[in-house]
């Protein structure tokens, strides 16, 4: 395999850093919010789930691109 392809795939997967930071921040804030207002936990949870799903998408795009570079 061309080593440049492997390096490119590794760089594409670095998008996981951003997603990790984003999901961590969101989780921290969600815990904060639930601790303050436990009665609103249902609403907070649904917004939180939507937020991490969107944040995670960037990591997934990077992963899919790495897969395409490696295996096609």
């Amino acid at each position, binding site marked *: *395999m061309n080593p440049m392809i492997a390096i490119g795939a590794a760089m594409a997967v670095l998008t996981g850093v951003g997603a990790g930071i984003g999901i961590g921040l969101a989780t921290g804030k969600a815990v904060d919010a639930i601790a303050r207002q436990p009665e609103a936990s249902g609403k907070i949870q*649904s917004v939180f*789930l*939507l937020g991490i*799903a*969107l944040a*995670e*998408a960037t990591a*997934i*795009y990077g*992963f*899919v691109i790495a*897969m395409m570079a*490696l*295996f096609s």
Partner: protein
Amino acid sequence: MTENVEHALTLGERIKEALAFKTVFTVHVAGLSIPVTETVITTWIVMAVLIIASLLLTRRLTEVPKGAQVLVEGIVGGLNDFFKNQIGHNWRIFAPWIGTVALYLGIANLLGFFSPLPVFGFEPPFALKPPTRDINVTAALSILTILIVIVSGIAIKGVRAWLKSFVKPAPFMLPFNILEYFIRPLSLCLRLYGNILGAFIVMELLAMVAPLFLPPIASLYFDFFDGLIQAVVFTFLSTLYIAEAVE
């Protein structure tokens, strides 16, 4: 050094082999030959499980639920409550589609958990691989969802109100609102596909490198937890999109 490179190559090749979609048999209809791949077979398995389970579990329903009926009522009632909360008074039209997708994804993503592992030189005769690791499956699901979003938006709001929704909240949002109809199915499709494929590759690597104790434990996280979370996220996002289209 050279040995290492060779080892990595064979690992990569084995992953490549595991990732390929084997054609189980080919159907010849009217001069066309349609290849039936593993994905279709596993989808049939999931369908069979769902159909048989729903036939068995809904026989002899009683007024006061007991036994398995409690579980079934819990699942169906929970899904219906969720749709009612999110979508509002039109929820009955959409509950069958999203509920079916939720049940299908819930079982399909868990398939990898029940796959036999190659341990002690034992070669399993078959390997259950989740059908959602095929981008065609997730693409079909997300395209159907966005078609339902568009059609229900037009049918429930009316053509004029639907067209007006493109220039809300301000006219300059028009290109972004149009783009949304392409980005939403793309991200729905890639999210599910990428997550399941990622978990699948990690599990394959683990089974190759440390086949003894690690895979079953890691499978609990990668197949069970991640698979269920992704099923929930897909259901949740499609419900949200539909709710936004019909409100």
